[in-house]
């Protein structure tokens, strides 16, 4: 069942200006994990904004769950390269934020605060942040902030998780740790994921399908299915089929550079 669909979508940020993305058509199945890779400035983040309803396409249509998008969506969780935690809130309060906004949680919050807090605590514990709930974001390391940010994106049980280079600012070890964490979360309670990244290993390790985008205007060059068996342990990244997948994608990116 198709959950997110792009139909010949183009977008120019200024009227009559250069296109940021051009004629994008892709479809994401329910609970599929897709990754979009490409050189910087290829409009990957634009794609995110289109799906979340923060911007409207200049031409073409974007559908979520069969409905055309008009305005911000509430079944979406988002996490960005910067954790964007609110510095005046503790980790727990940050994670609770979507519950203060998204219905039906919003109207139940007063009555069920205890229950929701337990929910948030459980999620934080799940990502290894037990004991940090009442710390402020600046007291957390970069990796911990990003874990909290992902918790915030998932607390309202969205059907679609959008990740915009969420591990880009982390060191290699932390990054790999979070890959595994994300994969586990996704396998336990499946949701649809759109991951935007420039890290090919990350894309191949996590995604079912990888799309390669070309430089401005962003167009989809290649769609590649990654048929590595799940759950994927970290050691899979050192195997031959994995390396082959990364290599093929790398060559496509390389050819974009030359053109």
């Amino acid at each position, binding site marked *: 069942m198709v959950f997110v669909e792009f139909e010949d979508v183009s977008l120019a940020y200024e009227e009559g200006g250069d296109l940021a993305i051009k004629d994008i058509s892709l479809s994401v199945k329910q609970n599929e994990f897709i990754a979009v890779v490409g050189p910087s400035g290829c409009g990957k983040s634009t794609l995110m904004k289109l799906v979340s309803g923060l911007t409207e396409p200049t031409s073409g249509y974007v559908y979520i769950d069969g409905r055309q998008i008009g305005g911000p969506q509430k079944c979406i969780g988002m996490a*960005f390269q910067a954790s964007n935690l609110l510095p005046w809130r503790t980790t727990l309060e940050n994670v609770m934020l979507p519950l203060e*906004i998204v219905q039906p949680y919003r109207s139940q919050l007063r009555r069920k605060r205890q229950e929701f807090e337990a929910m948030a605590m459980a999620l934080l514990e799940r990502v290894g942040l037990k004991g940090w709930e009442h710390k402020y974001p600046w007291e957390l390391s970069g990796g911990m902030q990003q874990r909290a940010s992902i918790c915030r994106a998932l607390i*309202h049980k969205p059907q679609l998780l959008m990740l915009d280079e969420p591990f880009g600012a982390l060191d290699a070890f932390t990054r790999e740790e979070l890959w595994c964490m994300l994969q586990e979360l996704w396998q336990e309670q499946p949701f649809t994921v759109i991951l935007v990244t420039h890290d090919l290993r990350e894309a191949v390790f996590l995604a079912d399908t990888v799309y390669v985008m070309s430089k401005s205007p962003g167009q989809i060059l290649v769609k590649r299915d990654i048929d590595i068996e799940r759950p994927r342990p970290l050691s899979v990244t050192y195997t031959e089929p994995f390396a082959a997948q990364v290599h093929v994608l790398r060559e496509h990116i390389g050819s974009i550079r030359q053109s």
Partner: protein
Amino acid sequence: MMVFNRRKFLIKHASWMLIVFLLLVWEMICVGFNVPEYLFPAPSSVWASGVDRWQPIMMHAWQTFFTTLVGFAIAVVVGVVLGVAVGTYPIVYKAFYPLLVGFNSIPKVAFVPVLVVWFGIGTVPAILTAFLISFFPVLVNVATGLATLEPELEDVLRSLGASKLDILRKVGLPRALPYFFASLKVAITLAFVGSVISETVASNMGIGYLMMAASSSMDMALVFAGLIVIGIMGVVMYELFAWTEKRFTRWANRGVNNTAI
């Protein structure tokens, strides 16, 4: 260790020591050069005059304190409301800003006679002058705090389907709070300037009036006593708001406590 402690002690009490030092220099100049009291009274005679006329000084000081606080309170309310409007809606910003900047450039002392014509002399023009002079920094800071909101923080909420009011309540206002508190410190000192100016020009109450009356009878010691009382009130209120700022916006001053000696 000893040296370090002494250094710490010196830094902690630097402001008091400077005041004492300046008072001593002042006293020595007045005594040493035999400056006549009607020109420049020594701190000792200012003190004597202050103690001597304690009661009238206190009465006038309360009047000034009261008008300042009322003017300041109005300024905070108006500043916050206009600041939120200016910071949230670009159209309000475009429409109001030149006007507000222009208004802020007018020396408020030039406006006092107008207020006197409208409201008579006394408390009302003093309150209004205190308000007029101190609302601008509050407005600008609140507006700046809101306008410099990181778009990413806004996106986090917008992607959840938050309304404009939600964004203001959950992100905008908390984010602007440090700016707001910083502006209170500036505004309260300006409010004192405003009310004293107005009292000097058109009142028969308040420290400003007291100083005018004293200087017309060449009682310089009393004039200086008045000045010092205003200064003390200003410092106390400033410190009060500095303390509240620290308490309520610790997240914005993180690390400051560690680096402060």
